[in-house]
């Protein structure tokens, strides 16, 4: 294991393009900085949008950054479902799209506190094995339900066959499950915000100071890391800047 540097310390906001895995972007940043680098929640390869990465000793603060609400934009094809809830999975079923009225009805049922099945093609472990691996082996899975809070679920555009949605959801909500519950699958997915951080702020060359990033987090999120750890990271950041 190559030792990784504890500096530079900071937060990097990236706008991931659709295609590469989140881990590829973590690795790329690590190559540039040679610092310990971590993510605070991945995006599927087909998805684009905001990734919050932590550099150097800021990785110790990861618990402050996970569990934040997320905002997404997604296009949903209402005429078919796929095994994965995204365009990469096998086609399961073709059907006529719901009427606008029926769509509104389904959307209404998805707002607030909801329980949705975790997509079979996800990284959760079932009996010690990754669900996507089991799914790939053809194992039929009864996927567990996960409780989510859907703060907002709004129609942006609607063509009959497709609907573009804007979502504001609690951490751990699978947008693919929302699409499946509407009787469709995601054809595109873009994360526009993680907690207070917006994708418009993303800049691969900017190391956001930890001090300013923490300030924007709710106190409950901060308190997931002991105060002594937080103050030690802040002190290291100050010393590096002064040195």
């Amino acid at each position, binding site marked *: 294991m190559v030792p990784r540097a504890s500096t530079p310390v*900071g937060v990097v906001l990236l706008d991931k393009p659709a295609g590469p895995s989140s881990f590829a972007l973590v690795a790329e940043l690590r190559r540039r900085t040679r610092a310990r680098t971590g993510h605070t929640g991945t995006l599927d390869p087909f998805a684009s949008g905001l990734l919050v990465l932590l550099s150097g000793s800021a990785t110790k603060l990861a618990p402050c950054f996970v569990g934040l609400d997320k905002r997404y934009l997604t296009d949903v094809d209402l005429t078919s479902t796929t095994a994965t809830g995204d365009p990469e999975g096998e086609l399961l079923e073709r059907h006529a799209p719901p009427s606008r009225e029926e769509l509104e009805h389904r959307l209404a049922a998805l707002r607030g506190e909801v329980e949705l099945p975790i997509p079979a093609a996800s990284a959760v472990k079932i009996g010690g094995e990754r669900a996507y691996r089991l799914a790939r082996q053809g194992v039929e899975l009864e996927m567990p339900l996960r409780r989510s809070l859907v703060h907002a679920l709004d129609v942006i555009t609607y063509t009959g066959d497709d609907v573009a949605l804007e979502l504001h959801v609690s951490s751990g909500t699978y947008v693919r499950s929302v699409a499946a519950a509407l009787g469709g699958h995601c054809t595109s997915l873009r994360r526009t915000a993680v907690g207070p951080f917006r994708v418009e702020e993303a*800049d691969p*060359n900017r190391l956001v100071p930890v*001090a300013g990033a*923490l300030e924007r987090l709710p106190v409950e999120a901060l308190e997931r890391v002991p*105060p002594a750890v937080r*103050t030690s990271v*802040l002190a290291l950041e*100050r010393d590096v*800047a002064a040195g």
Partner: protein
Amino acid sequence: MNVAHRPAELERRPRAVAIGMFDGVHRGHRAVVSEVLGRDLTPTVVTFNPHPREVLGYGVALLSTLERRLELLAEIGVEDTLVVAFTPELAALTPEAFAESNVLATGAELVVAGHGFRFGAGRSGSLATFAKLGVQTRQVDLVPGISSTEIRRLIAAGDVRSAAAMLGRPVEVEGVVVSGDARGGTLGFPTANLRVERSLLVPDFGIYAGSALGHRAAVSIGVNPHYGGSERRIEAFLLDYEGNLYGKRVVVELWERLREEAAFTSEAELVAQIGRDVEATRAATRP
């Protein structure tokens, strides 16, 4: 303005005391502080350093350094300021103990604070604590539309014009001039390379028009593509200035964001663009 770091350093006399962090001394803060001016009481401020959020590990992006905060308070007309060292022990004091030892001990007869000011263990102290201790109090309402959070958001987004309107003064970056790459000099535009405290909020990367030391300045805020030790660079080219600034503290005003940072295909192209930035800086107006 006298600056004290312990209550005993301030002579006990009838005082009107404004209490708060007053980071950035924006228009809302000025509304609070101006309540202690023009009375038969010595206009006094009690403030804190470091920022409580920093000490408690909650992080903060500051709008001004302590030094600048004190200068701005002095400009308003404050005569004495007590800078209370904020420590976990201080935060654990009962509101009454804090009020007695740091405010009433100076002779406070009137205590003024902004809406929502809290202090002491469990944030249980408020202006009511002072009222109970027999001091006159006055709470100043928020100035509509002015908030530190919104100012920080605007500055982070590079909207220095809108931020200035809320601050009641131009946005500033403050730092000490240190040696840089000396690249600007060879291009014909020697710049002062500022080292800025890490806890200070710095505007969005880009090129700004502003001023420093009474000269107009074209200011570049940006990055070395390969982070390295000092990943962020703040460089000011002072127009019509000759001299050595190394080691000097400089407050740079940022009046207007001119453009994004950009990479150029040739040095000649870069020099031509800087020339245009300098012209735009000459034409810029102070907010």
